[in-house]
């Protein structure tokens, strides 16, 4: 059982806590000859693979480094434009490293606030009155479980699609939140949770769940 991450969204839809637990890091480095058989494009301030998937380099992966020098935006560390390098025959062979980009904190905040109306929409769309919002959302690579408290705080757990007993884990996270975040006198409501005790007890819980399942929670 793999847990990928935990998110807590406040009553007003803001992300107040996020924790990446166990996200596999996908990175591939490969040496290429001229001409490059992968189509790259510059979008959203990243150099992205748009076509020509091979050897573990997938469409959507981002160029991370050229000849060991990390890429920011479309330039390498020594100030050269990535596309100039790729088009010039004399710069080859090139060793390019591609990987899947991790979501930045800003992107996570955007995603969390996108989930909020989605949750409300689901309960509005429901053909049966008095429906709750989204409780689980399953994709082929992950399962998202959401638990909303009576006060409107949402606890979101992203796991392996086969994970069982996520409700119990979410309840436990709620208990941890009510103990370690809310009883901390220096924590103000609706603000991001920066409580070390909460962090450590959450990590302990997630490790326990991954090791021995949810049966003895």
């Amino acid at each position, binding site marked *: 059982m793999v847990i990928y991450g935990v998110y807590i969204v406040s*009553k007003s839809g803001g992300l107040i806590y996020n924790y990446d637990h166990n996200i596999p890091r996908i990175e591939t480095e490969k040496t290429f000859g001229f001409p490059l058989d992968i189509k790259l494009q510059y979008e959203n301030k990243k150099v992205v693979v748009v076509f020509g998937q091979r050897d573990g380099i997938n469409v959507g992966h981002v160029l991370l480094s050229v000849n060991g020098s990390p890429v920011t935006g479309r330039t390498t560390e020594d100030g050269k434009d990535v596309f100039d390098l790729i088009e010039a025959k004399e710069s080859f062979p090139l060793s390019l490293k591609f990987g899947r980009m991790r979501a930045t904190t800003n992107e996570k905040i955007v995603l969390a606030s996108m989930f*909020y109306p989605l*949750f*409300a929409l*689901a*309960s*509005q769309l429901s053909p049966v009155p008095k*429906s*709750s*919002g989204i409780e689980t959302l399953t994709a082929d690579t992950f399962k998202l479980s959401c638990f*909303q*408290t*009576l*006060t*409107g*705080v949402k606890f979101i757990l992203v796991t392996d699609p086969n994970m069982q007993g996520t409700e119990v884990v979410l*309840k436990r996270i*709620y*208990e941890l*939140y*009510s*103990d370690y975040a*809310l*009883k901390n006198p220096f924590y103000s*409501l609706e603000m991001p949770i920066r409580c070390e005790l909460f962090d450590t007890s959450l990590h302990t819980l997630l490790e326990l769940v991954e090791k021995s399942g949810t049966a003895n*929670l």
Partner: protein
Amino acid sequence: MSRQTSRLDAKKVNSELLTLTYGALVSQMLKEIDNTDDVNKQLERIGYNMGVRLIEDFLARTGSNRCMEMRETADKIQQAFRLYLNMQPTVTSWSSAGDEFSLVWDQCPLSEWVEMPNNGLKYCGLIPGAIRGALQMVQLDVQCWFIQDQLKGDAVTELRVKYIKRLEDAVPAGED
């Protein structure tokens, strides 16, 4: 309460510790604030702030559902008194509309050993504040006040709780 068995720490403290700490707080406030009315207001405010946090602990511990009726709410409040103060107030004096009730108790850990100066202080003013704060977080607006107080010579302490309105705009999606 499933939590007691499954949790790592079911922390219990001697009620005397709470009584003394609360007493120290109130007497310090009386020293620092000249006007007793202001002390009452501050106590209410402290209680409110405690209530808005305590409700999460209550819900996480008991796994309660949303109350759709005032009698259920009264039950839950009674349960909370048992949980946090280890006391069992009686719920009485329902109004005919069913939107107002009294909590009556004759012994409260907060006011044990207290002899009141005669200055209009509401010694247990924290409790109504906490009830109001907690219920507000579950979208229930109530009014809460003492109508009898043992510390002022009444036979029992009576706290009145009155439903004002449901905070519709604050009901979370998927619950309304």
